[in-house]
Every structure is written in C-alpha cells, then in structure tokens.
C-alpha cells in the first residue's frame, strides 16, 4: 500500500492523525497533514483505509496495488 496526501485538498481537521497516528502527522506551521509512513506495514492498513474513508476533504490517496 502506498499512502499519499493532496495538500491542496487537506483542511487540517486531523481525523487521519487520530485514526492512524503511526502514518499521519500535522505540520507545525499550518496544521496540514504529512504522511510519515508512505508504505505502512500490513497491520496498519485497516486504520489507513478508515482514515481515507473519514477524511472530510477526500485528501488521502491510497494505492493498494503498490507492494
């Protein structure tokens, strides 16, 4: 799984940081989201999928094919 974020879309609500803190963080300057683990281990995939689902701005891009 490859995790990316579209910062143009991100509204900094922080849902992903709450749902998968091992994978997402927020930038100190403006609170926009950073991916800290682009290729998270398998046990985090469900949490990442949930984060992408509840992202209010649809800013999380998942590539499930990426190995």
């Amino acid at each position, binding site marked *: 799984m490859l995790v990316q974020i579209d910062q143009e879309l991100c509204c900094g609500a922080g849902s992903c940081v709450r749902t998968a803190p091992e994978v997402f963080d*927020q930038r100190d300057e403006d*609170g926009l989201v950073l991916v800290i683990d682009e290729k998270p281990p398998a046990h985090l995939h469900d949490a990442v999928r949930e984060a992408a689902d509840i992202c*209010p*701005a649809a800013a999380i891009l998942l590539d499930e094919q990426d190995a």
Partner: protein
Amino acid sequence: MTTSARTDSGSADRADALAFPAPKSAKCPFDPPPAVDRARAAHPVVRATLWDGTSAWLITEHEHVRQVLGDKRFSAEGTRDGFPYLVAGVRELVRTMKPTFFRQDDPEHARLRRMLTADFMVKRVEAMRPEIQQLTDELLDRMIENGPEADLVADFALPLPSVVICLLLGVPYEDHRFFQERAAALFSLQATAEEVRRSQQELLTYLAGIAERKQREPDGSIISRLVAQGELDFDEIASTGRLLLVAGHETTANMIALSALVLMRNPDQLARLRAEPALVKGAVEELLRYLTIVHNGIPRVAAEDVAVGGVTVRAGEGVLCLVNTANRDERVFPGGDTLDLGRDANRHVAFGFGVHQCLGQPLARAELQIALETLFRRLPGLRPAIPFEDVPFRHDQAIYGLGALPVTW
C-alpha cells in the same frame, strides 16, 4: 401520498412539504423529531418548508450527507439566493456584514482557515491536556466545596470550554457574562433581527478592542498572532475571533451537559465507562453521534443542478444536511437509536463533513474526554436533582442542549 420529495420527473409538491424545524418528542428528547423520521422513511430526501415560507431539501441519509457536504457544487456562501436560514436575524446579518470563512467557499475559505489550523491541530491540543485537566479539577473542587448540589451547566459544562477558548484567543474570561449572553442571542431561533444585529455588533466591537490592545501588548494568543501577522485587518480579526469564541464554547458546553445527563440515564453504560476508563475516547465519539447537537441541519445552496438520492436539486435551491438523522442511519450504525459506548462510531458526521468540517474538533474531543472522565470519577454519586420531565431542553436553539441541569451527589 406520503412521499414529500420531488423526483426527477415531477415537481416539488409544496402542500406535502414538512414544516421544519419539527418538534422533538417529549418522551425521547435525544432522538430526531418523529415527523422527520416518518418523512425519511418514505423518502431519504425530504421537501421542507421553513419558517419564512421558503423551501429546502432535507438530506437525511449518511451517504447523501457526505456526498452533499463533500461536493463543491453545494456552496456554503450565506449571501447566495436560496441559502436556507432558520432565523430571520441571521439572514439579515449576512446582507450587511462581511462573512467569516464559515460561510465562504474555497479558495477564500481555505486561505482564512489555514491561518488557524495549526492552533487546533491534534498535537497542539494534546499538549493542552494538563491545563484542561487542571481547569476541570478546579471547577469540580469549587462545586464540591459548595455542594452537594449544583447546576451542572452553569457551574461546570459552560465555564470549562469558555475558559479554554478565552485562554487560546487571549480574551479575558472575566467578561464571560457579556459574551455568553450575546452568543446565546446569536444561536436563539427566537431572537429578533434587531437582537441578533446588536449582539453581533457588540461582540465585534469588543473583539476589535481586544485586537487593538494586543497590538500594544502582544502575548502568545491567537488574536495577538493574527495582529502581528498583519494579513488581516482589525475588522477581519474581530470577526474571526467572534467565530471562534462563539463556536468554541456553546457547542462543547451543550455536549458536556447532554452527555452527563444521558450517561446518568443509562447506568449500565456509565458503569462500563467507569470500569474501563480507556473506553472514554470511543465513548465520546458515540456520544457525539447519538446526541448530534447540530440538530437542525448544516445549510448549503446548490450552485448547479445536482442529483442526490433520486432527486434533482436545482441550482439556487437550499439543502439542510441532517447530521442527526445521518448519525442514526441503520446501514452505518446498526441499532443506532441505542447508545452503545462500545460501538465504533468513528464514521459519525457530528462535526460535519467536507472542507468545513469542524476546525475545533480535536479541542472539543479533549475537553469532552477530560470533563466526562473526571466528573464521574470525582462525583461517583452524581444524579439529577429534578425529574427528567422537568429538565429544560433547549429546543429553540440552533445548538441543542440544556438550559440548566440541577444535580446532586
């Protein structure tokens, strides 16, 4: 015919439209109004008539609420024709005053919101936890000292988020009576246009005064930083400050009070929370879902024709996204009319959805988690001091809640 929605082939049937807001049931004051439940059972997109005779579509299902709030073709610009208002005074206000980003679309909305996202981001709020804990304990110390009776709203639920937002903004808490009264007028569905206008104006003048003071005496507060950055003028800083001040205390205060009440009414759930303090995070999500205090819908207006749930919403027509019924959607939350603190409620839309989703949600969560855990830990015998039938629910407010909650322990 019970369906009140216009399908693609038909036209809106005004005679059939539901009068909105509809009254809640006195027996189940935590549930959406029975008339709304009946209408959504017939069709998920409901034609409604508002107080001023205008119409709006009620969007009642989880999927459609997310679709509409996530779609840029639905505008949050309160100045557009067709934008649904539930209060005359607030509708007048948008004609005369510059809106905040709350009622603007991107890119202007994003530009202004991004000046504040870091202040409310998860790790910043996490760092505030010890301070929020201390404020919570101080309020409870005072309650216990003056006990064993208190008004949980005035003595606990309201002051906690008010003090916190004051500290963040750099507004003196001593002035709380002044701004709480004016905030209440802005949220009242009964307030006259003149009351709303005067409350708004007085709050703006007050906050512009604070901005001027920060220019002379800068500190670490949000208002002080906005002044120092120099990107916004004093009027814009005042209106941003007004938004945060009002949004930052009424909402959380009502959630604390309603949560305390519903937990006292569900002793088995409360016992579970007490036995397992780690449950508090999930419990707060479930309480946000179950109580959904933004109970009259999130307003938008269609900028183009858009199909939603088998209905074509025409350009210029208003919609109200009913997050309270979306949060009871059986397909997403099975058995959703029951409070279940062990449920995974993470997909609730109590904070909205789309780019306007609540900016203050990490703060609201931390306040709720700390307030509820500490309240029931320190006052294990907490119970209402009046019969449930006498609890004053705030039906006539944009934000649902309690006017008072007399308790004893």
